């Protein structure tokens, strides 16, 4: 009922924030191998796909899309676009809609967090997210007998009926924080904390860092002329910067174009 004072509130958070973690993804390097998706699932105890799952019912905190330039034959070119929670920094669409504060922006890190244990499963946040980066547990998670031994102890598996999404591997952030504290440092130093997808990318296409640290790769990428963010015009200030030297690739940032009646069950 009381809408947030959209401008001021996040900005205040921003000032308080110790760091604003962000990512840069070089689309000219992504081979679409899927290592990031798998590493993410392993890290965050996302179960194997249920037999009934489809590309629209599955849980893929980070998902690599194959996008083409719409041309045919020789003129056709494709690019692989990894899409994960864009960690919007200004009136984050999913935060304000959640009826019970299960979604929050961590002022210390700028990371948009999701608390499955408080989630009602109303899926309003999913309707609110323009990046389709939120996923609903349509089934109870299931692992083949014995495989639960390989679960990551730092992340609790989620039950059926709640929403989840990328949180930049919060477990890893926590671990890094503890290591830093053990080493007597108040802050995590650059490189001490990277999400699983970043670590697993064989071509180093995904880079991670603190946007407040001008030297960090995302901060540098943010200034690059060939960098862009998805649906920037919405004004939600995403913290994921994509990069490509190819002009047509940078078009994926824009709003969708009307259909051209192509038939493709894969997309």
């Amino acid at each position: 009922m009381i809408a947030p004072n959209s401008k001021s509130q996040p900005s205040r958070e921003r000032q308080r924030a110790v760091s604003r973690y962000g990512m840069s993804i070089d689309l000219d390097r992504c081979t679409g191998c899927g290592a990031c998706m798998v590493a993410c699932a392993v890290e965050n105890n996302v179960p194997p796909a249920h037999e009934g799952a489809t590309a629209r019912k599955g849980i893929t905190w980070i998902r690599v899309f194959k996008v083409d330039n719409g041309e045919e034959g020789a003129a056709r070119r494709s690019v692989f676009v990894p899409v994960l929670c864009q960690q919007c920094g200004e009136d984050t669409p999913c935060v304000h809609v959640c009826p019970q504060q299960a979604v929050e922006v961590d002022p210390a890190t700028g990371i948009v967090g999701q608390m499955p244990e408080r989630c009602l499963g109303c899926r309003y946040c999913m309707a609110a997210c323009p990046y389709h980066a939120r996923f609903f547990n349509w089934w109870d998670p299931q692992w083949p007998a014995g495989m639960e031994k390989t679960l990551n102890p730092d992340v609790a598996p989620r039950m059926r009926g709640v929403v989840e999404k990328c949180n930049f591997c919060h477990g890893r952030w926590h671990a890094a924080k503890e290591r830093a504290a053990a080493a007597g440092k108040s802050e995590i130093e650059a490189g001490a904390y990277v999400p699983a997808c970043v670590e697993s990318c064989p071509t180093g296409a995904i880079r991670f860092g603190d946007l407040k640290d001008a030297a960090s790769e995302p901060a540098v990428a943010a200034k690059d002329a060939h960098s862009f963010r998805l649906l920037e015009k919405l004004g939600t200030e995403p913290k994921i910067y994509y990069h490509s030297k190819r002009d047509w690739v940078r078009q994926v940032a824009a709003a969708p174009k009307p259909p051209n009646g192509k038939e493709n069950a894969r997309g």
Partner: protein
Amino acid sequence: MQRTRRDILLFMGGGAAGAMLTPAPWRLVTDAAIWSENWPGIPRPARGEITARYTNCALCPAGCAVRARCVAGQPVSLAGVAGNPLSQGAPCAFGLTGHQLPYHPQRLKQGTPEEAAAAVRGAMAKCGPGESVAVLDLAPGRASSWTYRRAMAAVANGVYLAPPRPLGGAAVNLAKARTVLSLGAPVLDGWGTPGNVHAARANFRLIQAEPWESRTAALADEWLPIRPGSEAALALALKDPKTAPSAAQATGLTEKQILDLANELTASGPALVLSADDLPEALALNQALGAWGQTLVARPEVPVPDAWKKAAPERVVASVPDSSIRVLFIDESVPGSHIPWSAVEKKLVRDNPVVVAFAWSLEGYGRHAQFTLPTAVYPELTSDIPPAIDSPAATFRISAPLVAPPARMTDPSAFIAKAAGMDAGNALQERADAIHKSGRGTLFTYADGKSTPLKDIKPDAFWKSLNEGACWVDDAAVGRASWPAFLSSPHDTQAEPQSTAFPLLVAFAEPRTASLTSPLMSKLYQDSDLRMAPNTAALHPDTARASGIAGAARAVLETQYGRCAIGVIPDESVPPGMLEVAAGPEVLDICGAFTRAKVVAA
């Protein structure tokens, strides 16, 4: 004053009402909700001491170095090892899920080794002249491979079979290459060692000649969409421009394109030509481009004990006369390049041959063998990994077990050695000692990321560190030599002639292995559309219509070797006249490289 029951009730009621205004009851309900996170069926991850352990991935010939994050000794996630000279710390999607393979639902749990041994003994006894006992080794070059060869040398008419070595066993030196022409080779997607390829990528220009836009084509500097099956023609024209016109016809490229490409290859060398399965034309082109000694090099064999030298030669299946093998052992415990069962089957004797497969799942040859004996699977097994194709120097690394294999697993080499009446011994350590004796090369240890010359290391220390995650790299000392004969030997990898019966050419979209992947890989093809599920084919809607399966989700794939059910996906990006197939055991049984096929309604 005296209390009535009413007072007490009032007191209790008041108390209850009051309690409702305190956080306590509500806190309880909240917690109840959080407890419900672990309602039945939701597993609790085990806790324990967190350690890092190292090994080498045995899931493909690349054998990348692996750092395993272990909780109380149990690996919960895998990652690459930064600074590794071979794999550069880059993992792949399949490798990242390796630690889950031991718990694969389709894992083979028990077999009947005794019966198998008896059957083998019987068969070997009545093995007549002209008949043979053979071992088919999918991953040649390992210590166990040598054991097999010794064993086959020990038995009369023993034969040691292996898939044809890519480039006849020669190695590729990408670091030297300035221009790479790939005729459908998945250079950036499963070919060679990912880390090594990506590291070298910046220094060469990649030209991908391939009918459809594969992952490699998408990232190549230039993609030449050629007609399906015209790779050979293109290679030929590039070697000898006179054939350019016909090549232009075959490939659908313009003559100019071809000639320009030819010039580029010669002008901006050193160049390298790779093809999906070594096309003689491609090899010849390499020869013409003077790749030998530059981008194509002969890699010295990893040292072996002299005692091993008396071993059976390595032969390809095609070289064995048909219906001549009475006893066949197939070792697929370590995934390697796959040979269609149809090709193997016709080599077996007619009257009940004995086929013993060593596998960790029933998905491979086990489906056809009389006996399938369960083996350990990575990361349970202990095996060395032969040098990768893109490693010019000889290497030696061991995939040391991170998890103890379950009981009643069979060790293929021990079994085969026993059948041949010899003792396998600890081949792995013997070879390590042989390497150490050679005193060449350096040892890179993963835990500390240090490289140490071999001569500064004691034999047992060498052996110890190999088992704790290390790799030995030979000094790359490769003298320039003339074009080796084995690279000119004709291959049976010619594209089958265009036929009306089988109009479609099969191209493999995913790595060509029959071995199972972790259930988690389902994320890649079920929860997203990034890769195709095993035994699935993508084809152009027109092709589908022509084949009378328009709109169908399932169909039957048919080749001259047989038929199997597949899923079909209409995709306009696949050119008409070809099938983009994701390998699966069933498909691999009937499809080799350049197989022609057709799809019919299920």
